[in-house]
């Protein structure tokens, strides 16, 4: 499965070797590889950054930022505006909640909804 997305994992190999491949397997059932990987990267970013809990160590924060950036680039490459907007809104919801804002649905639920809305 790593072969399918390998070119997009530069700098993130250590995260893929952790839990990312399992997450990818879940999303791969819902979407084509690049979108499944984008969803996986968003989930990984939130986990790496411990969003809403404790502050991560700087290297984990930066790795999380790279996950979000890579996901954003993968989504931009799809040229699907609505998909990009739906993914961004999912991150906005969980980040706002993490900062003390209104409660959000679970991230995975938001991402699946974003994907299903566009399949």
């Amino acid at each position, binding site marked *: 499965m790593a072969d399918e997305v390998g070119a997009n994992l530069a*700098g993130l190999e250590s995260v893929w070797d952790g839990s990312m491949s399992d997450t990818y397997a879940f999303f791969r059932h819902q979407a084509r590889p690049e979108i499944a990987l984008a969803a996986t990267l968003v989930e990984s*970013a939130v986990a790496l*950054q*411990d*969003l*809403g*809990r*404790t*502050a*991560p160590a*700087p*290297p984990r*924060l*930066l*790795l999380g*930022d*790279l996950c*979000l*950036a*890579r996901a*954003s*680039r993968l*989504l*931009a*490459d799809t*040229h699907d*505006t609505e998909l*990009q*907007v739906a993914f*961004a*809104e*999912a*991150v*906005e919801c969980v*980040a*706002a909640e*993490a*900062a*003390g*804002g*209104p409660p959000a649905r679970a991230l995975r639920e938001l991402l699946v909804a974003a994907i299903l809305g566009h399949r």
Partner: protein
Amino acid sequence: MISARRLDVPTSRATEFVDITARLQDMISAAGLREGRLHLQSLHTTLGLTVNENEPLLLGDLQAMLERVAPRANKYEHDNLARRSGVVPGEPPNGHAHCRHLLLQPGCTLLVEAGRLVLGRWQSVFAVELDGPRNRQLALHMEGDFAGVAEGPAHDRPDRELVELELARQLLVDPEPVRGPMRRLVEAGGKRLRPLLAMLSSRLGAHDDPLRAAALAAAIELLHHASLVHDDYVDQAATRRGRPTVAAREGAARAVAVGDYYFAKATRMIAQLGNPEVSSTIADAVETICLSQMDDVRLRGMYPGDYATYLRVVRGKTAALFAAACKAGAQLGAAPIGVVDRLQRFGDLLGIAFQMADDLLDYSVSSGKPLGQDIRSRTVSLPLIYATEDVRHGARVRELLAGPLEDRHVQEVLELVEASGVLERVGEEARGVVAAALREIEELTLDGVGPQLADLANSTIDRVR
């Protein structure tokens, strides 16, 4: 024309000299005041203003003098609350602070020429806290000729105002826990270089649409600020533009969430423009920035590095967003590919020049940036790279940088860098890079935005003396 503003000045000690020079300059640049006067007025009876030298020992002398003139331990009738009327609950005993205020000014006027505060080499502007810590505020009036007004109909599109309005509009709808910290950061000032580059670049094509350009420009500024929020946490910086960083004020966990929120929001705003080229340009830039930030942190073990390393990190960390702002703006305006490429190179060079100028602020007492911060955080910086190569002082600089960096070590490095003359060399180099940037666009038909692009280019290094 008069433009009114307020400047928040949070203080952290009972008596404190807060250098506000850089923030005032930023406000002048942001307002576009070219020739005129800046009037400042304290809105408090125990916060004064003065212009003096920002030298730590001198500030200690001034503080000691204030203490001698009106010792805190003395008795003051003002503090006898039982005898006074109209006492506000919780009013502190501060007769000493009012007496000390007699030695300071409640207001002052500063001249502005060519968009710069007219100050002598050693002059800095201070708000002087006499009864802190408190959240203070100054009233500002800027009076004179403003860039947008003075340049006539061809140049008077209020790009800056559009960007500010769009930023305010976008922030208005966000949940307070993320909006508050971002609003404070955005309102702290800044030149808005990246958004203005995007605005101007968008005019160089067939689809000039100021409102869409303002949306792109505001999104780029929010991306930039989101990145600063995370950067400040990584660098453990306590202040930015004289104010506490989001991490310092709100806690690191919230800072992470605020950065993520505005990263996502900015990418959404850009996606909603419906221009795939623009989305890809910004997405590529953000990825480059993230990779360079990781690179930068990794390189702190090989501090201070060499010129090639410096250029690679700066191109990624700083110049990538300048270049993307120019490129995306031109793409949004549907400029020809040749123009897009030229503007991208123009932005890349401006970003490099900007970072060189920013490096020099580490050695400037009036910059608003804590002295020696880059040295303490072991951030790759051009003056340090050159100082390590200096024949007279290089060996000692290398020796100091290889060891623990306590205050006295940082002070010695600062002195050696100054003595080696590399600050002038970096300043010259920054000016040369701006000149190269301007050469990139000199052959383009700039549809009336040439002077503004040149102004913006020069303003990337206007902090270089």
